[in-house]
């Protein structure tokens, strides 16, 4: 009998999803109840995850198709916390748009479930299953504000392109299966014969699919449109949570079955990384919509994360994970600010709407200032350390070109962050925004901003948690 305790969080979430669906059908006006129950579900599964899997070094289940290790447990916890915070701060936004429905929390729960399956997958089939589960939920979430043309467009676009990339990915899986005789990561690693060129094709196809999911250049085209069109709370979800899962799969896929083929894939990752960093920095300059800008900036940030992956070392993986964790916090803070730009039941999302914010809302602007400087990677804020660890790992492998290109692109990227700060602090003020925000929104903003600001006092803690991750 397998040790089911280890996947208890997944089981718990899937049971809750079914239960909540049934509850939603039979009980009228239950959206608030279901909302709260979902929060509760996420919280409990996070606790179970920590409790059951935190101290495990590496266990595989179900004929080695599922793996539980420190990386899986850490990434699951981050995913769950991210999902929890997204849910908790989006309730007001949903109410304003009158889309506070039972489906929203349930869809988020099921996409989280898919991500958790992805994170733990040690087999191409399990991985694909998880990926599709989360993607399906995300398509619907993108169109959630269905009365708005843009939202429907975003969902459709996301669906078409994502389905295409899933197809590529699946084709890559079949190639790999054909040439190695197994879909299991460990078995593939043993069976590997690097002379098979078709195998390289397989890797490339899968990498393309994955690069699409994390919106790395040149597979980023969907991101700006989808981010702009989706409801803001869903955009927040898009920028944070799926990336964690996709990154984990990325790491596992490259470093477990194909670590010996590093010569084959390293160049691809370096290219993806450099292209994303530069493109993300340059394309963001001309944007006027904050959500589009965030889309491009997230492309850039993915570039830095990939730079850590390209190193082929444990330090690199750890630095990528640190980067994505800090990035999640920064994004959460940024979107909390965005969700506060509300006046007369309407949300504002143009950069010009921030004009002169510092006059009327000094505290909110101060938070934005800290967040933006942190995103730009200026010390002593958390964003600097994220970049610092990545480049430390990159330089350890003597990849100076990557490091220098990366750091130069931070200078370009600094320009558009500074532009927002300029608009907030140097420009003429506009009307006041509402100040009656929900307690959770205020909490998440304060909490994440303080985390960003004071990270430099205790930088060792995060490193200690991450240093337990040993993939190679």
């Amino acid at each position, binding site marked *: 009998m397998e040790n089911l305790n280890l996947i208890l969080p997944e089981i718990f979430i899937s049971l809750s999803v079914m239960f909540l669906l049934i509850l939603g059908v039979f009980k009228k006006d239950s959206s608030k109840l279901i909302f709260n129950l979902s929060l509760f579900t996420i919280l409990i599964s996070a606790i179970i995850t920590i409790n059951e899997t935190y101290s495990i070094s590496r266990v595989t289940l179900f004929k080695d198709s599922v793996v539980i290790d420190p990386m899986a447990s850490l990434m699951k916890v981050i995913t769950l916390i991210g999902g929890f915070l997204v849910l908790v701060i989006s309730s007001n936004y949903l109410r304003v748009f009158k889309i506070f429905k039972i489906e929203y929390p349930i869809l988020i729960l099921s996409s989280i479930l898919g991500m958790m399956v992805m994170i733990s997958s040690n087999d191409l089939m399990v991985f694909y299953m998880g990926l599709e589960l989360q993607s399906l939920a995300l398509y619907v979430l993108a169109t959630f504000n269905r009365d708005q043309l843009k939202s429907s467009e975003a969902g459709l676009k996301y669906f078409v392109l994502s389905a295409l990339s899933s197809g590529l990915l699946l084709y890559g899986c079949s190639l790999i299966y054909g040439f190695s005789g197994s879909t299991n990561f460990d078995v593939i690693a043993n069976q590997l014969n690097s002379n098979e060129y078709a195998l390289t094709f397989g890797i490339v196809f899968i990498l393309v699919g994955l690069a699409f999911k994390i919106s790395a250049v040149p597979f980023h085209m969907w991101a700006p449109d989808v981010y702009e069109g989706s409801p803001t709370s869903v955009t927040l979800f898009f920028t944070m949570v799926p990336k964690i899962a996709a990154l984990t799969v990325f790491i596992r896929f490259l470093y477990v079955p194909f670590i010996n083929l590093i010569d084959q894939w390293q160049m691809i990752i370096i290219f993806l990384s450099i292209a994303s960093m530069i493109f993300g920095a340059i394309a963001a300059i001309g944007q006027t919509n904050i959500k589009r800008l965030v889309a491009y900036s997230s492309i850039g940030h993915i570039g830095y994360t990939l730079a850590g992956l390209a190193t082929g070392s444990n330090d690199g993986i750890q630095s990528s994970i640190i980067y994505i964790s800090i990035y999640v916090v920064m994004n959460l803070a940024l979107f909390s600010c965005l969700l506060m730009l509300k006046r007369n039941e309407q949300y504002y999302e143009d950069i010009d709407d921030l004009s002169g914010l510092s006059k009327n809302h000094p505290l909110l602007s101060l938070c934005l200032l800290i967040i933006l400087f942190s995103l730009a990677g*200026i010390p002593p804020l958390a964003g600097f350390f994220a970049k610092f660890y990545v480049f430390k790992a990159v330089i350890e492998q003597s990849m100076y070109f990557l490091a220098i290109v990366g750091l130069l692109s931070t200078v370009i990227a600094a320009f558009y962050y500074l532009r927002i700060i300029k608009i907030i602090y140097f420009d003429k003020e506009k009307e006041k925004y509402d100040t009656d925000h929900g307690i959770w929104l205020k909490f998440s903003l304060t909490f994440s901003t303080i985390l960003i600001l004071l990270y430099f006092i205790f930088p060792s803690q995060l490193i200690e948690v991450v240093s337990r991750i040993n993939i190679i």
Partner: protein
Amino acid sequence: MNFPILSSLILLPIVGALFLFFTKDKDGNNLTAKYVALFTTIVNFLISIYLWLLFDPTTSAFQFVEERIWIKDFINYKVGVDGISILFILLTTFITPLCIVSVNNTVKNRLRDFLIAILIMESFMIGVFCALDLIVFYLFFEAGLIPMFLIIGIWGGPKRVYSAFKFFLYTLLGSVLMLVAIISIYWISGTTDVIKLYELGIDAKYQNLLWLAFFSSFAVKTPMWPVHTWLPDAHVEAPTAGSVLLAAILLKMAGYGFIRFSLGLFPVASEVFTPLIYTLSVIAIIFTSFIALMQEDMKKLIAYSSVAHMGFVTLGIFTLQQQGIEGSIIQMISHGLVSAALFLCVGVVYDRMHSRLIKSYGGIVTIIPKYSILFMLFTLAALGLPGTSGFIGEFLILMGAFKDNFLVAVIASFGVILGAAYMLWLYKRVVFGKLVNEDLKQMVDLNRSEYLILTCLAVPTLFFGFYPEPLFNTIEVSVSDLINMHNLNIASK
């Protein structure tokens, strides 16, 4: 002594800023905020004086060293001072209270935020001068960009946005290469601790590239020709207090960095690149002096003169002679005092007439005599008249340069003449001459706070001009040991 005196110097302004943050922001003349800020900085100044008294000038070892584990197995938070850095700390803590007094007249809106920015800036600057770990140094060095960007951008003049962006991006671009170099040093030597690196030395084959990476950062910050163009813009647009901080202290970070890191860590490369530095310094001295002659805006003129003066500093540092380096340090201190005073002088007339153009003045000597006298003093100090601190620095630098390279020294000496030309011509056009502009008659002479600030700056300028012994005492051993270490390193290679 176990009391963490350096950390308290760094932290105190931040505590003051936090305190201000929680006070209410009133419009208009926010006296409470100003007194809090003033009190904090004066206490900081007293602490640094106390530090100077405790300081033992007979050794070149780092004193008051504090070390704490910061990132486990990687970086330690380490601070300490030697004879070179302590003077810069004193300069910082001395200039900042004067800046705060000077905001009386210049900053009208959001005074509290302005003071917070200045206080945070002070703490970062002190951090730069006492950091003994490359990464800690980098943190402080870069973090200073944030408050300065805001000071220029929020409280600056009409073209402030352009200037603030230029300042920020230029310096950031220079610094990221330094970050690459710092991380490389970590992987080459296994540590970023400056003291350990001094002992270990860095393999000569890496030194050239690393030196260039550090150079890219310091050259922008110094600023050296041809990457000096951000400085005039930033100076002109920044509010007076911002210009003062920028000229008096920020520019010195780079000079300090050259001495501490470029010379200390990369002796071989420093020899290799001396011709480069000489060329750029001489160009800076001559070329920017000519540009200064052409300026119509007083602040811009002084900004260009700063570039020329910093040219002397870099020249002096890379003579690698006792006199040259000592001269550079004294020149930096003196320039800190004098350029601060000159910017304040410009600020004084700007507050009254709202013009910085030279041609809108002339003949004000009879209207505001006190001002004219003090302005005269600082003009003379800027052109290096014997009896002012400016003379000592320039003289020593040229002496060092003559020892090392005759041609360079001769050309640089012309810079002194040009310096006299543009400063005296500026003074003549502003203060003497016929009173053409009738509005000038309404100008009032220095008020109490302005008088106080300028006198505070005049005293050390004159004192160290006549009696520079305390400065020499402090730096002598550290500099001579630095040179000995350098020569040893060169000989062993």
